[in-house]
């Protein structure tokens, strides 16, 4: 009876380790696919950038150094953090944006799945390949700037279109980097 219990415990442990190692196996292909998918949906959810919003355009200056470290893992984590910020931005008050709801939902859902995967992995492994503090803060500042911009303009149509164009630019940058990884 004891031996059987031991075997059962052993099997459970084996399964848990297999499952957790599976969850942490976020292949670069999956990240690439999420980015491809997200870019397609970003295009699908709205029209071309409206001319009248051109004057309100702002330069947010995405911190490109964040995508340059030598360690692959560090870049991957930076990309996950960017996904999380994008997910947050698009979950705000979007009534004035007049976008295709289905495309937007799928966009959010795709990002969220990636975020969940990495978070579960971090919780289990308790390690993270960190960027330098300076880089991490630069990234947070960049997204805070966009957030404040949207708030100041009270989430009107133009501010949303500018935000969307900026996120598109950001994702395209990541796309280029991840293809080289």
């Amino acid at each position: 009876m004891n031996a059987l219990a031991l075997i059962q415990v052993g099997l459970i442990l084996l399964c848990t380790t297999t499952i957790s190692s599976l969850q942490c196996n976020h292949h670069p292909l999956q990240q690439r696919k999420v980015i491809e998918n997200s870019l397609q949906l970003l295009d699908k959810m709205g029209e071309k950038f409206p001319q009248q919003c051109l004057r309100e355009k702002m330069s947010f200056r995405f911190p490109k150094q964040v995508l340059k470290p030598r360690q692959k893992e560090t870049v991957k984590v930076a990309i996950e953090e960017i996904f999380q910020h994008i997910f947050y931005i698009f979950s705000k008050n979007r009534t004035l944006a007049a976008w295709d709801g289905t495309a937007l939902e799928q966009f959010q859902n795709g990002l969220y799945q990636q975020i969940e995967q990495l978070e579960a992995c971090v919780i289990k492994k308790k390690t993270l390949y960190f960027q330098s503090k300076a880089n991490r803060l630069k990234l947070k500042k960049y997204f805070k700037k966009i957030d404040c911009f949207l708030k100041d303009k009270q989430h009107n149509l133009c501010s949303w279109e500018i935000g969307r164009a900026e996120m598109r630019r950001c994702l395209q940058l990541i796309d280029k980097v991840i293809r080289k990884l």
Partner: protein
Amino acid sequence: SGQTNLRSPEDIQVYAVDKNFTLRWNYTGSDANVTFSAEYQWFTDFQTKVTEWKELPGCQNVTRTECDFSSAITQYYNEHRVRVRAERRGEVSPWSSIFEMVPYFIAQISPPGIELQSTNGVIKVKVSPPEADQVQKMWISDIHFKYNAVIWENSSNAVSRSQSIFPTDVIDDLAPDTTYCLKVQATIPLDLKEGLFSPIQCVKTTRKVNDLLCATNVSVLAVNMKFYLHWRNRYKQHTSYNVQCLTGYLKKLHDDYSVKWFNVPGCENITDTQCDLSPVITATSGFYYIRVQAMSEYNRSCLSNEVKVDPLITNEIGPPGVKLDINDVFLHIQISPPGGPESEVWRDHYDLSYRILYWKNSSNNEEEIKVKEIKQTIGSVSDLTPSTLYCVKVQALSRVYNKSSPYSKEECIETPRDKLLPLIILATFVSALIAVLVLATLLVFALYQAYNKIKYVFFPSCQPPLNIE
């Protein structure tokens, strides 16, 4: 006012929760009539520009060894520096050592609020986020939080378990009629931050009512991205079902998602215990929750457990198709990928490769099975022995998702006869024949000559010569 023998404060510390910052220090000198004042400066850009030392609001002429300077902190992502000194009757101590900090990194997450409800053997939890009623937030948004709940039985040697929960969630797999205690913390995993725990709340679970109306064994079967939901019915009377779907990310938000469940088209008010989920499971990224609502004739309804469908993970890959073609040198294996032409979209995600098994199908069945793995849909095998039956079966593999399909049907093909061999045999036979013929002729000739010689020597003809007569 000069610096005399006043000691400067030591062990400067900052204690921060959300955007409330408290400066603390130790003072070892005599406390009589000593007040403290602090100064601060901050970097406007990383390590390049720094402001002048300014008076720290909330920390001027304080008598205690701590002060609240939250009003001074507005730039959460910039590096700040703080220093304190003691003052007494015009005398000032030297400045203490400088404390450096980035507000965002040093701040802790305050406890969330929790509301518990015990129903039907489970505990429903509703979490209210830290900084819920704040306009200015340190943590940007409650979306960034992942909540960690710690639960234990309220008995003497209870073991606590820890699980991740959504802002609105249900904790099941609990024993009925038992008191459980709970505490929750908000975490920001990507920043490796774990917040302070909420106060402990305890609640007693009720007994689970086994309503036969509810659908049970709700499961999803998916092959080649065709998703089917199956469940079981234990209710004897007439039951109709509604299959409902919830987009995954909605659980992450703090809004009430109970109103966001929608009916799956084609599975409304059905009596079948299965449903085709294709109308809703269309994307490859993002997961969904599915549940079954059972309704009886008397307008009573019951919701089943939820099933999480993560398309590419829940899906199983079907077997590929195989076609064989053969010539003298190569056996060509043509693989048709699983799912047919329309499956290209999702096949791409799996990054499929194919494992080919091939063997010689001889009568003794002792031949070894050879394996070959390729990424393309055409493979070839060389090194063939003629006039042999070769059999092949193929399976599709996804290393990215650690999935493999069942094997395809076995296909067999026979290698052609060796054209060269009969010719060789014929040539050998003919040359052997010629050689034999030649040898035979020579032998006959030699024998004839020998016979003549022997006849001449031993049996000459007895005719006298003509001139003797």
